[in-house]
């Protein structure tokens, strides 16, 4: 019953999406408010039915109803409740259902909180949302129905892929989808603006909070995924330039560019046409990411499905939306009026530079990801493009971007004073040079570029502190006055500083981890001692244990440094009976921002066990950086400016401001 109800709810959601995608447009043509208001009610109803459908699938998973194919293939009655729930989106069908549910959620939010939007703009935006939703409901219903029944229900399920039975999976895909799908709002606003042929600064003010929300989730989602790969896959790597990772990085890069160009548009009414294009491109890259992951065209740990009909269907959706929106763009973009003038050296100029480097970096990732696919299709030759390619292209493009970053917020709008800004950034420059000298003196070995890269990271961090210090006139006014000024500073200024500093923090983490990472690989008997980066790791014993749906062998290590007891680490290897597969549960021990990492290999003869140990200096900074960036985004989101919607200071984005 529940499966059929869920299926039916999905069909109803499709019907509502079809109404939502047509009636409001007709209403806008006829200037009929009643017809335009249909958009609001259908969007809310569609959210209700998509939500019900998702709830139905979750119920089937929780109650372990193995008469449903999807549950049978991806669940097991002995699985802990948490993983029964997260298993809902640990497979193709379920994750597509999550995708449309989040799309319906964003549509519903615009409908519920978009009361201060002009009626026709809201009608158009929701209609475009309706098109996207309808396409994906059709995709699910025709090629990936999660509610299919089995003729002869088996007694036990085949269990979820053990690698996915982890708390990381509970958080990573929903976060990522909130990011991907959140950009659909910016896309819908862009297409609506093109249809109406009208766009102004208020438009940017509406789009910015939505883009910011999507960007925050995408940032956290990518960071989560990277940390998950780090501790779950057991190789100690945190970024593999895997096509699936690139698929999430591309919308992030162009989304970051979009955030910055929307600032120019909002403040100075310039870069309109470019901002619209970026909004379209960002969501197109999100769709491309969905296509790459969901069609199974890639060889990758993430590609669960290998069914060509699905690939072709998503490819059609992709071509329809990207091709359609770009055609509309070419046709209508010239009707949008050009805005304010600015000199090349100015805040606007700096933001243009940011956009230039971000989109170019995004393009190199795009080429590196799709070139092997294109080559294989054209010549049949199989190649792989790995980390070296991206290090040689992406890296050099990010260096000028980071060098210019501290200058941006300090430059004035319209016409900036580069010399003045350079003088004000003197402190950051000196700090960076000191850092380079110190790192050079202290460390031996490693790439010669590493100290320079760390200096760049320090420059970026101190640069964002200088930005705040300049704004509050620290050391030039009495401390109490400076403090009062700091409190009165717009939240967006703090947000910028935190987000920019986050990039610097992540950069330092990345450089330290990849340059001074030490490893030990070998077989160990109980009471053997391994020495790693000044730590002694003693294997105490290896024991067997029975988990809920797996057996694991657990190794206990005593960690000491110069005789001082530091702690115990217990890596394990799990064997999952239902799937006949095993996973490595790495043990992590944090010391400040650095970590010790142990993962187990296979057991050798005579009670010996193969181990892989790493000392990863400052590795945690890689993820602290994105957290800082997301926090900066949150601060920006709570800025007063974004709350006061253009015509009426109503509740346009109140729902998005958690803290005040």
């Amino acid at each position, binding site marked *: 019953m529940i499966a059929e109800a869920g299926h039916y709810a999905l069909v109803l959601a499709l019907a509502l999406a079809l109404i939502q995608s047509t009636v409001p447009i007709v209403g806008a043509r006829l200037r009929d408010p009643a017809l335009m208001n249909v958009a609001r009610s259908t969007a809310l109803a569609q959210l209700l039915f998509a939500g019900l459908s998702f709830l139905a699938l979750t119920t089937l998973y929780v109650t372990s109803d193995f008469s449903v194919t999807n549950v049978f293939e991806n669940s097991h009655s002995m699985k802990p409740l948490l993983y029964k729930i997260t298993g809902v989106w640990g497979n193709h069908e379920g994750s597509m259902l999550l995708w449309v549910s989040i799309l319906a959620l964003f549509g519903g939010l615009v409908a519920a909180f978009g009361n201060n939007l002009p009626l026709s703009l809201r009608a158009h935006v929701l209609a475009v949302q309706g098109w996207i939703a309808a396409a994906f409901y059709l995709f699910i219903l025709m090629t990936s129905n999660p509610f*299919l029944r089995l003729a002869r229900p088996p007694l036990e399920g085949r269990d979820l892929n053990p690698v996915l039975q982890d708390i990381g999976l509970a958080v990573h895909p929903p976060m990522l989808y909130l990011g991907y799908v959140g950009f659909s709002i910016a896309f819908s606003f862009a297409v609506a603006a093109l249809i109406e042929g009208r766009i102004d600064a208020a438009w940017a003010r509406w789009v910015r909070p939505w883009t910011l929300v999507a960007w925050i989730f995408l940032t956290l989602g990518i960071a989560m995924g990277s940390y998950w790969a780090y501790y779950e896959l057991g190789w100690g790597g945190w970024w593999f330039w895997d096509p699936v990772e690139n698929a999430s990085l591309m919308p992030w890069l162009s989304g970051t560019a979009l955030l910055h160009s929307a600032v120019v548009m909002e403040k100075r009414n310039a870069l309109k046409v470019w901002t619209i294009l970026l909004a379209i491109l960002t969501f197109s890259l999100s769709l491309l990411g969905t296509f790459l992951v969901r069609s199974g065209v890639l060889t990758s740990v993430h590609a669960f499905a290998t069914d060509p009909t699905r690939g072709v269907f998503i490819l059609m959706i992709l071509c329809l939306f990207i091709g359609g929106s770009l055609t509309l763009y070419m046709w209508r973009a010239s009707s949008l009026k050009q805005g304010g003038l600015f*000199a*090349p050296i100015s805040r606007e100029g700096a933001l243009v530079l940011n956009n230039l480097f971000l989109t170019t970096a995004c393009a190199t990732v795009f080429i590196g990801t799709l070139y092997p696919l294109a080559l294989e299709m054209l010549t049949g030759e199989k190649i792989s493009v790995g980390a070296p*390619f991206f290090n*040689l292209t992406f890296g050099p493009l990010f260096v000028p971007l980071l060098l210019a970053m501290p200058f941006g917020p300090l430059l004035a709008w319209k016409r900036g004073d580069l010399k003045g800004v350079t003088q004000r950034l003197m402190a950051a420059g000196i700090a960076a040079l000191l850092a380079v000298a110190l790192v050079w003196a202290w460390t031996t070995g490693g790439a010669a570029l590493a100290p320079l890269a760390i200096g760049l990271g320090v420059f970026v961090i101190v640069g964002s502190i200088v930005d705040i210090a300049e704004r509050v006139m620290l050391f030039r006014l009495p401390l109490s006055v400076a403090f009062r000024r700091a409190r009165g500073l717009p939240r967006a200024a703090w947000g910028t500083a935190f987000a920019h500093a986050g990039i610097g923090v992540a950069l330092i983490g990345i450089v330290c981890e990849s340059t001074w990472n030490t490893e030990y690989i070998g077989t160990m008997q109980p009471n053997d001692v391994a020495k790693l980066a000044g730590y002694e790791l003693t294997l105490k014993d290896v024991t067997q244990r029975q988990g809920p749906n797996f057996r694991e062998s657990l190794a206990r290590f005593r960690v000491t440094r110069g005789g001082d007891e530091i702690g115990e680490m217990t890596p394990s290897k799990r064997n999952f009976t239902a799937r006949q597969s095993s996973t490595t549960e790495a043990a992590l021990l944090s010391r400040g921002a650095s970590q010790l990492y142990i*993962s187990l*290999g296979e057991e050798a003869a005579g009670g010996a066990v193969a181990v892989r140990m790493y000392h990863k200096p400052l590795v945690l900074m890689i993820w602290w950086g994105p957290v800082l960036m997301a926090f900066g985004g949150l601060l920006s989101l709570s800025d007063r400016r974004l709350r006061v919607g253009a015509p009426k200071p109503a509740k346009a984005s109140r729902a998005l401001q958690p803290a005040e």
Partner: protein
Amino acid sequence: MTRKQRRLTMIGGALVVLAIAAGLVLNALRDSIVFFSTPQMVAEKQIPVGKRFRLGGMVEQGSLVRGDNLAVSFKVSDGGATLPVNYKGILPDLFREGQGVVAEGALDASGVFKADTVLAKHDENYMPKEVADALKKQGRWQEGSDGKPVMSQGSAKPVVTQ
């Protein structure tokens, strides 16, 4: 500066960045891509010693030998030809005899493939795509009844109906 000059400055700047990026991409594509081969292709083509490539195929049943200090050797075959592989380190969780594998490394002077990375990105019904394609070409591959590729010794699956 006039509007036109400003626009030209910006377009010029953009072109410079794009040209640099294009140069970087072309340079990186020349140096850092890795080709994929099966044992059969290795036997047919003369791959020079020391040239890095990815080797894909099936780990031959009973060929896995563990030596001292984590040294392992196994044979990779694709039905047509077999190539011995040496590797030192811990094999991934999903590595098993009779299943697909992709290894990255180079041939040494004695014709043994010295791998420095072994990937086994698959579960019991998912194989590395390159391996599946290569095996399909040689007719060693059977499509499962539900369209999913199934190994010759693949387990029976319940019939899916609606």
